[in-house]
């Protein structure tokens, strides 16, 4: 149909990079959404954000060393997660500043790595790709690794699902029932770090939080039970990612630059837009707003 030709620019379905983008994008979106759901539920959004900043450093470092940035995202993210676990949980307000300042140093390091990297390599736009994503240039050799990591993280979170729910409900009940609460928390942080690394491949390290938090936050506003929330979050994530890929492909000849608008821009806008739309729906059903900005809960690292 002619309409379809306007929606899907020619070559969309035939393009190799698009296939890869759609496949990897879908798997990563689902993983991020589900992991993100648990992240928001456990009040660990700030941890997710911190891991994203540290992943930036990792990706830049990988670039400097000449390795695929995914390994950098993953290695630094996992390392940071392990460190967070070691220094223990329960962050309160005073610690925000400490974490923030340390993250600032990590970003400073990222700046250095990117600078040095661009000195020694001839690839243009590497900084942009690391910061804002490079979904169309994922090589086919990395695809199996990405998909395997995503499935591993997803499987971990699904297998731990009930235990995570119980621990969020009451860590004491969980511990009394024999749940190894700390080990479970550590495993979750690893899954989170992996998720962040994967999202970073799609929409960049700096923006990866969007795929993690956005769909989950929206799902929490419109559904109730855990399984349904996970399904809705995954659906939103995949929809935003696929639509973002499509729009980015279509935008190739759009003004002003004639080289396409970034995928990450579309994905982030769709996700944030979806979240705002959910506000229109539930306006009369009682807001979730606390009377005072809920910073204490908001900024716990674990």
């Amino acid at each position: 149909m002619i309409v379809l030709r306007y929606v899907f620019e020619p070559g969309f379905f035939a393009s190799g990079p698009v296939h890869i983008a759609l496949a990897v994008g879908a798997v990563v979106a689902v993983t991020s959404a589900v992991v993100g759901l648990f992240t928001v539920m456990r009040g660990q959004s700030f941890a997710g954000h911190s891991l994203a900043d540290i992943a930036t450093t990792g990706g830049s470092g990988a670039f400097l060393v000449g390795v695929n940035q995914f390994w950098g995202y993953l290695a630094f993210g996992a390392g940071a997660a392990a460190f967070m676990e070691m220094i223990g949980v329960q962050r309160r307000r005073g610690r925000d500043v400490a974490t923030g300042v340390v993250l600032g140093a990590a970003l400073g390091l990222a700046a250095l790595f990117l600078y040095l990297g661009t000195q020694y390599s001839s690839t243009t736009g590497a900084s942009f790709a690391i910061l804002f994503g490079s979904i169309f240039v994922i090589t086919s050799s990395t695809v199996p690794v990405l998909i395997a990591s995503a499935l591993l993280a997803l499987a971990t979170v699904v297998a731990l699902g009930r235990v995570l729910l119980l621990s969020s409900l009451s860590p004491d009940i969980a511990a009394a029932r024999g749940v190894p609460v700390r080990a479970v928390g550590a495993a979750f942080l690893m899954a989170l770090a992996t998720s962040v690394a994967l999202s970073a491949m799609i929409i960049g390290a700096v923006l990866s939080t969007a795929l993690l938090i956005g769909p989950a936050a929206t799902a929490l506003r419109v559904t109730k039970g855990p399984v349904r929330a996970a399904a809705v979050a995954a659906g939103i994530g995949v929809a935003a990612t696929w639509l973002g890929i499509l729009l980015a492909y279509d935008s190739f000849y759009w003004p002003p630059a004639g080289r396409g608008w970034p995928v990450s821009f579309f994905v982030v806008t769709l996700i944030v837009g979806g979240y705002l739309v959910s506000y229109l729906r539930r306006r009369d059903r009682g807001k979730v707003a606390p009377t005072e900005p809920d910073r204490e809960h908001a900024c716990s690292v674990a």
Partner: protein
Amino acid sequence: MFSGLMLNTWIAATAVAVIAGVTGFFAVLRGSTFAAHAIPNGAFAGAAGASLLGLNPFAGLAVFSLAGALGIAGLSRRARSDVATALTFVMMLGIGALFVSWSTEYAQEAYSLLFGEVFGVSTGEVLPILALGAASVAAIVVMFRPLMLSSALPEMAAARGVSARRMELAFLLVMALATSMTVPVVGALLMFSLMIGPAAAARSLTARPARAMFLSVAIALVTVWAGIALSYQSNWPLGFFVGVLGAVFFLAGRAYAATRRRLHLDRTARGAA
């Protein structure tokens, strides 16, 4: 290092440090670290968009950051603040990424707006930076007492007719204005370090507000000057030095405070014995 070209940089950076020190002091006092993180990203988007249009960037820059500040204030009141922060943060970065992608030098542009650019300050830019910096500092000086009161003792301030919400808004707007000027020099991602690191360090060193604010400015100045000097010598990015020095001063301040507390405890213990 002190040639004519660099002079602009020194002046601009000094203004930046003063602004950062002053606003950072209040940001730390009010616990507005998330705003300090998110607002510079509005400036990033604004700067990217404005430079794209080739206009004098500051108008667009200021508008965007102000819009961002209002957005944050509005959204965080209705949504869970952690979610609101994260989403506003990424939205503005996303828009900034879009604008940057439209420019011809997009990689370099993105980099310098996020991580800072030492050599990019032209004479035409110094004056607006100084002017707006002076305006922000003046605004803070004028608001100093009600702002202090509502930051430290919000209920008491409210009883005296100082609305917490209005102060919050005013403060966010000043922060937006201030950071919009400073982002082209220090970079959006590192502005946070310059605001929070020195201010938090100052707080560890003294409890008296006026002294803490001056100390905060002083440490920010040292950070920026050292950063520029080191950046000039090594060619390494300014953002790197700002981030690392910010962290170093912060940790040093904490260490100092911890040792002083322990000495004090020892002294009182010994005194009691």
